[in-house]
């Protein structure tokens, strides 16, 4: 696969957020995308047609992360107001607010069955919330991290959290084991490969690190971009052939997965690229930036 297959052509610019957009995420089938930002709103878009569909307002402070269930019926979001909001997509109402984090909540994810929400907070903890019961108490608190947990990923049986303390911790529910991989550098964001065998961890020394999940081995390091002080996303492309991520100077980088060479890098935004999300099937990507725009990229 060459550079020509990479989504480098800007198709649409989604404008609407006032101020920085902190996260942009495709939904599970890639037809829609969600974004959230400093203006305390969550917005639902159709990125392919460039249409703004809905705005979800209830957060008291900036919204840092948002995630959608596979059936597109529910949303979960979190942010600076220390709460996790559980939304109904169609009505735009908040079904539940999960309070319990002692500080800002950095990331949030649904599990496979959309029955549990796992949130990662600045209070050095991961918390699991039950969506089925009416209890607003967390059903699990993981507080083995020694610094702010920046990112969380879920598989069918595991909860994976990346923290500023430099560790990526995998909590295997089936085995009852916690596996801590110490990278030695603050971990900004983690993302799973599509085959779920590897973790891509974005570290604050401007390096993306690819870890083998079974052995904890460092497979590859990707450098070239700048990532020193902001929470920025990284991800693998839908084919797992490339690694992509933003840079603090507004560039987007593509690396070859295997030989870690920068295949392509181009200026996408005028400011920090906070979030990248790759379409689950097509060669399409959305990026969000501090400049308040979300851009849709295709081949």
């Amino acid at each position, binding site marked *: 696969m060459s550079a020509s297959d990479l989504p480098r052509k800007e198709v649409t610019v989604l404008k609407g957020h006032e101020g920085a957009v902190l996260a942009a995420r495709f939904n599970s089938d890639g037809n829609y995308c969600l974004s959230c930002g400093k203006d305390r709103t969550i917005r639902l878009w159709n990125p392919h047609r460039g249409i703004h569909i809905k705005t979800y307002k209830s957060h008291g402070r*900036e919204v840092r992360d948002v995630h959608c269930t596979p059936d597109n019926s529910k949303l979960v979001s979190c942010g600076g107001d220390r709460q996790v909001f559980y939304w109904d997509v169609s009505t735009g109402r908040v079904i539940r607010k999960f309070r319990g984090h002692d500080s800002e909540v950095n990331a949030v994810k649904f599990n496979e069955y959309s029955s549990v929400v796992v949130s990662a907070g600045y209070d050095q903890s991961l918390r699991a919330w039950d969506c089925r019961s009416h209890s607003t108490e967390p059903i699990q608190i993981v507080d*083995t991290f020694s610094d702010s947990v920046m990112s969380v990923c879920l598989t069918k049986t595991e909860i994976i959290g990346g923290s500023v303390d430099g560790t990526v911790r995998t*909590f*295997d529910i089936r085995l009852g*084991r916690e596996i801590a991989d110490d990278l030695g550098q603050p971990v900004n964001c983690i993302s799973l490969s599509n085959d779920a065998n590897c973790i891509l961890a974005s570290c604050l020394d401007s390096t993306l690190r690819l870890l083998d999940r079974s052995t904890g081995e*460092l497979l590859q390091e990707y450098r070239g971009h700048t990532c020193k002080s902001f929470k920025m996303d990284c991800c693998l492309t839908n084919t797992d052939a490339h690694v992509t991520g933003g840079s603090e100077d507004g560039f987007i980088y593509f690396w070859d997965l295997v030989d870690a060479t920068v295949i392509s890098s181009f200026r996408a935004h005028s400011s920090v690229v906070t979030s990248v999300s790759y379409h689950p099937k097509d060669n399409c990507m959305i990026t969000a930036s501090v400049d308040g725009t979300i851009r849709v990229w295709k081949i």
Partner: protein
Amino acid sequence: MDSDQEDFVFHGTPIEREEDHSSRKKKALAESSGNLRSLPAWKQEVRDEEGRRRLHGAFTGGFSAGYYNTVGSKEGWTPQSFTSSRKNRAEVKQQSLVNFLDEDEKAELEGRSLAASSKFDTFGFTAAEFARKQAEKENRSSRPSAIPGPVPDEIILPAAESIGIQLLKKMGWRHGHSIKDSHSSSLYEARREARRAFLSFTSDEAKPMLSTSMLAENNFEDVLDKSAEDDDKSPKITPVYMLKPKQDLHGLGYDPYKYAPEFRESKRLRTAGGRAHGQRARDNLFGLNSGNIAPGFGIGALEELDVEDEDVYGSGYDFEETLIEEAEEPAKLSIELHNNRPRLTDKEHGILAGFQLASNSDYQLERFEPPRIPKEYKPIHKFSGPLEIGSRLSDPPPLEVAPPEDSNLKVLIEGVATLVARCGKIFEDLSREKNQSNPLYSFLNGGKFYDYYSRKLWEERQKRNQTRPLLDRDDLSVSKMTAETRGRILGERPLERSSVAPISFDTHAGVKFHTNLVDTFTKPIVFNELLKVSKPFKDDPAKQERFEQFLKEKYQGGLRSTDSGGTSYMSESVRARERLDFEAAAEAIEKGQLAKSSTLNKHSMEFSVGAMQFTSGGIEDAKSVQVDELPGKILPKREEFQWRPSPILCKRFDLIDPYMGKPAPAPRIRSKLDSHFFIPDSFKASGTEEKVASRGDALPMTQSQMSENTNLVEKEPEVQMEIENVERPVDLYKAIFSDDSEDEGETSAVNKVENPEKKVEAANATLNRLMAGDFLESLGKELGLEVPPDLPPSLDKARDPLHKEVPHVNDIGNSTVSEFTKEDKSLEARELVQNLSIDGKKYASNDSLHKRSDDPSFGSVPQHDGKMRSLYDQSDSSPSEDERSRKVSKRHQYSSYSDSDSSEQRHHSSSKRRKSHSSREREKRSSRRKHSKHRKHRDKDSPERSRHRSERERDESKRDKRR
């Protein structure tokens, strides 16, 4: 009415209420008909609809306030409809200003108000107003004027002067002048004269500097004088100074910095700077609170700004702020400098209204002139002693001479040489001058030991000027340098050699060399030798050289010339790193040296290994990067821990809880137990683990313990605590007290896994029973009570709980079950027991308990109780048995208790409800049951010994009290 009155007896004369009333009514009617309306206002009376006079109170008008108690018109506020027909035109009321004025306003309008007459109106307010009115009147009277239409008031100003002004004018004041006394002005004149004189005295250099400002001053003063003389030409020389123009948007008198004065200055600076830069108008509030806030988003009024509200994405630095400060400082200074004089004069002139210059002030600014710099001064420091570095290097070395015998003299010579080498020739000259007569210093004047002195001097200089010792010179310098000189340089004390040294010095030079070295610095020379054999930086000759230099310096101590020529091109950091490398290398060499057993080959091996390491920190960047990466490659360190997901999480993830049925996390138990009391080791080991251990080891062990403990009362609380600490799994209760139609399978599974725990518990329980029984026995003996003989069977049972002795249990049964199932009652009973025992009535409780146990309604219980026991005490009950027992118990609960008293019924009916209760409540209940269970064990121990039980409870209650 009359019929009513007939029943009463009246005393005195009745008040004629009816008549009064009716007459008033009539009166009111008459009024309303308008009879009285013709009366003037002050004669009119205000009455209510019943005709009574309405009293409003002394301050609100008495009886005649208002116009019929209305708004002052006959109509009042009653709504009116506007009707106007062709025949009957509605009158268009012409409203004038007068209609809307109050009485006093009207009076004022008419000019009837009391005011200062124009004659005495100093400030002319009233006069001005009056004049204006006058003008208005004139205007109104439609006199033809030049300006058509109404003339604005501003144009027509009355030319009325107040009496004050007139007085002042009489006194010589003229318009536009400040009011000052002649005394102050004369003072001012005198001062000006003095200043002029002073200026004329100042030196010629200073004059041009000040001349400009002086000129300005003079001009200014001249202008002043002139204007004072003829003020008709420049009538307004007292300008009105607006000291603080109001530029903000606050209300008048509002001071935003009232409670935070420290911000005022910064604000002022900022605004000043902002004006200077023509930008930067930031909101006050936010600017004050925190530096960077994302544009556009505020937060709620009830929230305070926090760290997280700062705009992290904004352009990181406040450039403007710093710029301003930089720009501000010099500007201010220059203004200060330039305006110094004029400002002073301004102040002296008494420009501040209402302030006078103090004739004599305590404060006097003392100014000192800067020190005068001599004309020939050049800001370069020259050392008078000549620098002899270059010349000395080329000098041929003087011959080596043997030192003088006299050690004192030798020391002196060497000392002088060192000093001279260090401080230059001037010291030599000085000391020569000083010690002209002193024979000791003859060596300075070419005396006996001059050769030795010159040699020493040369050596010292060599040493000092060593810029780049080459390899060939190495031997020389090292051999020539004596230990003493080095030691002296280092400030070391010369070793005692008064007896030895002279002898050795007399001998051959080579011998001397040896002894000297051996004396103090054994190591360096050996190292130097070693170095020749093995060089750690072979691949980099320059570096090797530096290393050798470093080594030499290191072992020489003291004079470490860091900027030796070779390293000058290196940066500071690189040098520092290299230095570290060298240190490490030297250490390695030293180690190698110390481990003498190793051969030379080994040495070289070590060094070669070392070389790998030492070259790493070198200048080459690529290498260092590699080194940096080395730990990185190792870094993803993997560690594994145990982690316990909560059961509900597992359920939600559709996974089987890996810790299902296992005891609660170990650390919690440990902490709980350890913090409270000490447990025998065997217990700790068996507590959380297999039942085999607890049954096999703990039991015999505790029995042996028991034999020791029989009379030890203080051991008892320990056991007691254990009983309480045994956790009862919640599911067990669920299994018993809930109808298991829905979660049958689940609970059974749970029960299956929970077996080990139960077994442990059972073991504990048996142990407790044993201990308790034993204790009771001993207690009974002490108190002289009869001890029931059925201890052996209980012991038996404890030893082998598998053999359930049903008849025996049956015996026990009654009281147990009664207490267990009717927990309320049992609790009540226990309270009763405690109360009673506290009161000292030992046996009362006994009776009550007996009564309860003898209650016929519990007749059918025994079998059930046995099953219950099997549930709790049976150590190795199989799940099926467990299940069965539970079912049986259920059946019994419903069958056998159906005819029991109502409290029983209530209990069972409530069980269903309880299930739906929150877990917390369940816990609470279970804890209560724990108590009851606790009791049950005790009861079982001594079924017939309720007396003893009460004894024990008394004891327990005492203990409780103590606690």
